[in-house]
């Protein structure tokens, strides 16, 4: 599974993209955030306030309860500020 980070999440994690292979019990976006948090201090810092992290699963906005089933690409980012 490809995980992408944008804006200050990328700054904190230290990379914009990584490929991960989470265990089968990681079923939802929230599970994935918890699992990534456990991987390194940088990840922990990026996800320290999950309430301000937004997510997209296969390029569609997804909330913390959304299932991952078979997703190829999951992205984490702050609330958008374009326009």
């Amino acid at each position, binding site marked *: 599974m490809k995980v992408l980070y*944008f*804006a200050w999440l990328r700054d904190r994690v230290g990379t914009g993209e990584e490929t991960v292979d989470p265990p089968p019990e990681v079923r939802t976006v929230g599970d994935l955030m918890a699992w990534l948090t456990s991987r390194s201090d940088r990840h922990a810092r990026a996800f320290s306030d999950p309430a301000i992290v937004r997510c*997209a699963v296969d*390029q569609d*906005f997804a909330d913390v309860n959304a299932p991952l089933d078979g997703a190829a690409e999951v*992205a984490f*980012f*702050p609330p*958008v500020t374009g*326009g």
Partner: protein
Amino acid sequence: MIRVQTEPFDIGAEVGAFSRGTGRIGGVATFAGLVRDSLGERPEGAPPVRALTLEHYPGMTERQLERIEAEARRRWELADVLVIHRVGRMEPGEPIVLVCTAAAHRGAALDSCAFLIDWLKTRAPFWKREETPDGDHWVAARASDDDAAKRWDRDGCS
């Protein structure tokens, strides 16, 4: 039509080309967002913004903008729609975004133009980073943008 580009664009040239009348267009509404030298809700005396860098999520950006355009065309009878959004680095005074809508009647043009920019602000994956003399920082999302987008909530299209 959706364009996401790093190249600067000329508001006048784009609006001029978009507005060429066919006899069936009664009204053209446009909104252009420009880089301001004091972008966020910053205190008086805060350092001016030297430049802005727009990051986005390639692929998802175009997909979301196409959905937003489709939603506007579903809600209003529109002859034409153009959304241009720049990414990369730009300086105060430069355009960031342009939304143009054309319709037989002005209400459809004006409302859909406001709708497009409101939805774009909350649903398209762009992020702004400001350069100031005190350093760079990511612009925080504004609650007022969520409120503006909520005005249009009738049915979803996340």
